[in-house]
């Protein structure tokens, strides 16, 4: 047993990702992993750790969360996030347009209201009441995302997100609209006492309908933590909701006695169609796993015994 941390920057990565797309993301993953590891080493609680890591990912414009969020069909940003700790306390927000760090607002909902989930105008008003940092909506919009929206509209379809113009490839056609994208950020952590926490944040799907809510803020879908494990998922929101992905990892451990790795692999292989999901998860005993059924997933992890990994593609061919 010891601490462990894993984080992701989105499942679904085009095989032709060029260096200018890959390098800044890898650098950010490396930086965030170090931040998280340092925090765990200085005995910060997993809840604090996942929040600070996700804040960092939100602030980085290369990932689909906070600044750099993908755009709705109206060209606006609507952000959502969720945080949960192993004691089952949780908080979630949706429909944010000016809040700089959605994950921190989710934490405030958890800690300062009798509720779990606040959305849209009500969430924005709550943010202002509590002096949470807000910026004009234009702050979150990047030229890359304006371009992505334009391309999505031209192709007339909704996308998870993508870093490339669309190209039909054999590997890509495996799952309609599910692959070849980056999207959503998340972090899970456990300390050496077995305290767990999970956090996820996103701008959602490119060209999504205004008001569309995905899996990220839904407890049990994109985010979940209990006494056994902490999970953060990424991919096609609608498929993750239907598959209650994050809850199912924990349920398989609890009800079928599977290990973390087995449970996560089972969910990714069998509960969600290929090309639609990836997740990071840690267990109370310090294990970590990062399975995905997309071509790639931006991810990083580290454990107290010295193991660490930063990767995009599968490690082994299967």
């Amino acid at each position, binding site marked *: 047993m010891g601490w462990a941390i894993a984080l992701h920057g989105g499942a679904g990565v085009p095989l032709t990702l060029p260096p200018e797309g890959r390098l800044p993301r890898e650098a950010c993953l490396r930086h965030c992993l170090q931040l998280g590891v340092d925090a765990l080493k200085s005995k910060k609680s997993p809840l604090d750790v996942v929040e600070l890591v996700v804040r960092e990912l939100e602030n980085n414009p290369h990932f689909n969360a906070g600044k750099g969020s993908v755009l709705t069909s109206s060209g606006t940003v609507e952000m959502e996030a969720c945080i949960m700790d192993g004691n089952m306390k949780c908080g979630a927000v949706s*429909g944010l347009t000016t809040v700089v760090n959605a994950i921190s607002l989710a934490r405030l909902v958890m800690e300062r209201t009798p509720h779990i*989930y606040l959305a*849209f105008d009500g969430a924005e008003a709550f943010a202002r009441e509590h002096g949470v940092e807000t910026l004009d909506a234009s702050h979150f919009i990047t030229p890359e995302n304006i371009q992505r929206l334009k391309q999505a509209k031209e192709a007339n379809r909704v996308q998870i997100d993508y870093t490339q113009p669309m190209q039909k490839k054999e590997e890509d056609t495996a799952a309609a609209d599910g692959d070849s994208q980056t999207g959503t950020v998340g972090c899970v952590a456990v300390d050496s006492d077995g305290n767990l926490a999970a956090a996820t944040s996103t701008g959602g799907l490119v060209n999504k309908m205004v008001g569309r809510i*995905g899996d990220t803020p839904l*407890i049990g879908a994109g985010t979940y933590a209990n006494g056994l494990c902490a999970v953060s998922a990424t991919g096609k929101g609608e498929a993750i909701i239907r598959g209650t992905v994050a809850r199912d990892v924990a349920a398989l451990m609890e009800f079928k006695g599977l290990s973390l790795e087995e449970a996560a692999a089972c969910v990714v292989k069998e509960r969600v169609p290929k090309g639609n999901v990836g997740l990071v998860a840690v267990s109370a005993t310090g294990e970590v796993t990062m399975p995905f059924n997309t071509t790639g997933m931006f991810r990083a992890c580290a454990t107290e015994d010295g193991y660490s990994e930063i990767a995009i593609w599968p490690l082994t061919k299967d």
Partner: protein
Amino acid sequence: MVGWAIAVHGGAGVDPNLPHHRQEEAKQVLARCLNMGISALRSSLPAVDVVELVVRELESDPVFNSGRGSALTEKGTAEMEASIMDGVGRRCGAVSGVTTVKNPISLARLVMDKSPHSYLAFAGAEEFARLHGAEVVDNDYFITEDNKGMLKLAKEANTIMFDYRIPTVLSDTCGASVENPLQMNGLPISVYAPETVGCVVVDAQGRCAAATSTGGLMNKMCGRIGDSPLIGAGTYACGLCGVSCTGEGEAIIRGTLARDVAAVMEYKGLGLQAAVDFVVKERLDEGKAGMIAVSRNGEVACGFNTNGMFRGFATEDGFVEVGIW
């Protein structure tokens, strides 16, 4: 082919001193909606259509906390949410922040059938409704005098409340809280009455479906979302079963109650009633809630750790029951 089965609910947690005529009124509405569902099943309507039409009827009736008769936000408005799930393919649709759509459950159905998404909320949901010609009315339509009175009292008490109906003489029932130590969400049980609604159905083909609809918590913050529109929390359906929950929304969300019923059936091999009992016992801690469920084998079940739950059941072999306690 199995026998069909249907269950409806209208809220968990009931004032034991609720006036008799109020109890009867609620039971009559449940019975009427149950009968509509039974007729639909007899004419071979698929499960997902049956749950929708039953919940529409419950929404249209002001007795329960959904659609017309919804609990009010802190601003005195109705802000409704609903979700529907079809066990066939585990397709789902949900809406939140609905303020003018006459039947939120039907909007949730439209999201499931006519949008590329699973969940739409607030302005986006309202816009989608208009795009698809859903029936819209003024927000006033949903607001009843009873609920305006409730909200006033809730504000005076300065606390979130479950939906409750003012008994004819408030002081009597509030006084009863001294003799009656039951509580939910920190409030005396004397304030609990008809609430969130839901319906679960298994049709003769063994297809399961579930639907839930609510106005939410009295005096809630605008923008507060509860369990009812959250797939896996308030509503769930898959090849094995259909589940709809009611009670303390936050406890239901944390406990992912609806999904857990199916998960223990799937992963532990429990039968329907055993799964419901397990979830109510193990997944709620201090939370108070109840649920109804059907299985693909034509079974129907319910469970609650509150003192009562408005509910009704019927199965093809003729069993019919409407109850509160």
